């Protein structure tokens, strides 16, 4: 069964990498938005969302990512998703998130795209 949600963060230069694991549900989405807000307040506006260890999401959890995108858009920031499972990629696509965020097949490629 899909594991409980957990979030790890790493900073590389001026890029915030947030790596999720487990089910991205309501609580998971809130955690992402809350941790992002901490870093955003410190000036981080370029974010990689690594979802390699998440295979199940729900739309409530993902709706918090719209909040993240909105705040990044307000100050010319950028969000890149990395390592998306096909069904998660399709979910984000249906919701229109790729109109405002990019996707790459790995964290390294996402960092390269932000360089």
């Amino acid at each position, binding site marked *: *069964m*899909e594991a*409980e949600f957990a979030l790890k963060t790493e900073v590389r230069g001026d890029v915030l990498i947030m790596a999720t694991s487990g*089910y991205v*549900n309501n609580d998971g989405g809130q955690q992402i938005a809350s941790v992002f807000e901490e870093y955003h307040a410190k000036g981080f506006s370029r974010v990689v969302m690594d979802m390699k260890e998440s*295979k*199940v*999401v*729900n*739309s*409530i959890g*993902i*709706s*918090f990512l*719209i*909040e993240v*995108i*909105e705040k990044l*858009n307000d100050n010319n920031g950028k969000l890149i998703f990395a390592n998306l*499972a*096909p*069904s*998660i990629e*399709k*979910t984000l696509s*249906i*919701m*229109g*998130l790729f*109109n*405002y965020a990019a996707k790459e097949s790995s964290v390294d490629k996402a960092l390269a795209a932000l360089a």
Partner: protein
Amino acid sequence: MEPNIKLKMTLPRIPDIELVAIEGLDRMARHMGIPEEKIGEAHVLVTEAVINAFEHSGQSRPVVRIEFTMNQEKLIIFVRDYGKGFDPGAVEQPDIDKKLSSGHKRGWGLKLMETMSDDLLIESDDKGTRITIIKNLK
């Protein structure tokens, strides 16, 4: 061809209970040799249908019935709640451009179910809602 296999569950409202339904679906799908891509899309359908059922049940101690019928060609997901019902025609289609500037960023479940399924039937009245989702597996 393999005959249909079925799984029925009654889900109480406890956190992440939809994962239990997904686990059951996974076991059925692996038994039937269903491609991973289709299983992943079925996860989305089940997750959204169960969450939607609990959200709109309007009951203090709601339960949701879910039933999977699967063969190698097709998955039928039936989800039943006993809440106050809703008018599917009155549900506004979510739009990312509007959501970005809105305080209400939720409301995507129906759109995801419509788009990711091959057929979706919603029957709702004051005795509850019945959602039948068909997903082709080939």
